[in-house]
């Protein structure tokens, strides 16, 4: 993919923000991204805003609160991939030569909109008989146990790793590390998944300024990071009895992204992946072909996905540790890669980094493994 760059990033702390509106959170993230890019509100030519539950015209309200109005604004929704879909659409418009500087924003005030376990849309036949998102992943975990000998302890180690990483991230919802034994001692949500293996309910917003090659040269900014691939796919209607431990959706999206970037799994040095559940990190990483099928949980136990390991995964804390304000998640993942590539990740800095990958996917409907998936690859 030619000539798309991230010139600035901004995000709020993730967590519970009972006294702030979604528009207010989004404005903080947007103004932070503008400041980071060293540009003003009048420099932005168009915006895409991803969210799930925030109601009509969220993007116009968000940009308005940051003093931006009049420009083309598109609200996008793709379940948990809403924010990363905003980035995907923004990148497409830059490739079309329609603009030189645009915003992609993700926002969610989930704590005011939601209680209980997340479900597929109420019209979904599986939702109507009791399927919750934790139980979807619980059943995938059970198959991973069966096929590869994965253990509850290994999955708990993923949660513990991500909460440790979160403790190094000032914007994360969870501040305190937690041991594998503590994860396993927590209540079961859907067997075999424990509470700390499930992403929390979170509020937050994140924004990135994307620019064309021409604008990047004009800005003359050394800290600009290149978006070398941005791919979106939806779940394929399954025919036959498929292997639930293998994410066809993740792999098809990754393949498109690897092709755009001219890179392969062997080139990826760090990854932020959609760990809505401990098992989810496993099936994403294996679906991205970053570890062989069935091997990832064992590798985590050996520390290979930790900071300092051979492929650090979810250095930001991931959804499990940083929090999961649905629409904001996909944008925040890209922000973590940008900060790491710039060498600005503080105590969780990965050394010698040149290539990072952000994977975001979400949703579930009868007959498909997931609603939407994005893979963004960034390089120095």
């Amino acid at each position: 993919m030619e000539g798309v760059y991230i010139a600035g990033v901004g995000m709020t702390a993730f967590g519970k923000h009972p006294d702030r509106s979604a528009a207010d959170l989004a404005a903080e993230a947007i103004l932070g991204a503008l400041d980071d890019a060293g540009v003003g509100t009048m420099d932005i030519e168009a915006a895409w805003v991803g969210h799930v539950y925030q109601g009509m015209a969220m993007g116009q309200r968000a940009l308005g609160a940051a003093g931006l109005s009049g420009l083309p604004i598109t609200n996008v929704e793709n379940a948990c991939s809403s924010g990363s879909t905003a980035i995907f659409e923004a990148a497409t418009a830059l490739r079309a030569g329609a603009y030189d500087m645009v915003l992609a924003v993700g926002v969610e005030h989930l704590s005011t909109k939601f209680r209980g376990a997340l479900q597929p849309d109420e019209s979904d036949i599986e939702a109507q008989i009791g399927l919750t998102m934790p139980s979807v992943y619980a059943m995938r975990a059970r198959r991973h146990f069966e096929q590869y000998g994965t253990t509850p302890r290994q999955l708990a180690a993923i949660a513990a790793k991500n909460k440790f990483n979160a403790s190094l991230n000032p914007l994360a919802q969870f501040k305190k590390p937690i041991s594998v034994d503590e994860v396993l001692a927590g209540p079961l949500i859907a067997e075999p998944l424990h509470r700390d293996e499930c992403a929390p309910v979170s509020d937050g917003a994140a924004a990135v300024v994307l620019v064309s090659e021409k604008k990047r040269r004009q800005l003359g900014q050394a800290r600009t990071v290149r978006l070398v691939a941005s791919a979106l796919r939806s779940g394929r209607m399954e025919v036959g009895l498929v292997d639930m431990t293998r994410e066809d959706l993740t792999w098809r999206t990754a393949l498109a992204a690897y092709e755009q970037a001219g890179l392969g799994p062997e080139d990826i040095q760090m990854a932020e992946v959609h760990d809505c559940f401990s098992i989810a990190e496993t099936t994403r990483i294996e679906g991205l072909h970053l570890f062989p099928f069935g091997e990832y949980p064992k590798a985590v136990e050996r520390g290979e996905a930790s900071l300092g390991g051979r492929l650090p995964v979810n250095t930001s804390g991931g959804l499990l540790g940083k929090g999961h304000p649905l629409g904001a998640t996909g944008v925040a993942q890209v922000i973590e890669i940008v900060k790491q590539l710039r060498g600005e990740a503080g105590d969780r800095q990965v050394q010698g980094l040149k290539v990072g990958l952000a994977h975001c996917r979400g949703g579930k409907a009868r007959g498909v493994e997931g609603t939407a998936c994005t893979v963004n690859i960034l390089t120095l």
Partner: protein
Amino acid sequence: MSEMKSAPEVHGPDVFEYEGGRLCLVGSSCPQCGAAFYPPQAVCARCGHRGGDKLLLGPEGTVYTWSRVHRSTPEFKPPYVLVYVDFPQDVRVLMPLSDTAEPQIGDKVELAMEDGPRVEAGNLVPLVHARPVQK
């Protein structure tokens, strides 16, 4: 069945039939490529062919995976056990298990109409369940 309506909303009375006295779910198969679906599909997801043939799923299947659910939404009464059942007709269907005892992957199950886990107006709603066979 070439003119199919929207999918049924739940495993309710429209979606099963008795065959040889035993309960089956009503799915569809594509007359062009043979792909099988539940609920019935008006357009084949594999080849795009429009319309499908009726295909009964059951009367027995095997447990592909399962979970006992402890936290859910207000519409459901936990704990309950969900199973994905693989039918010999090459279709996998989610349903509640008849009891909350621990199943095993590979267990043989048959279909049965029982109450729950869905709650409406305080009452458990009848749904097609998977019931263990000779366990």
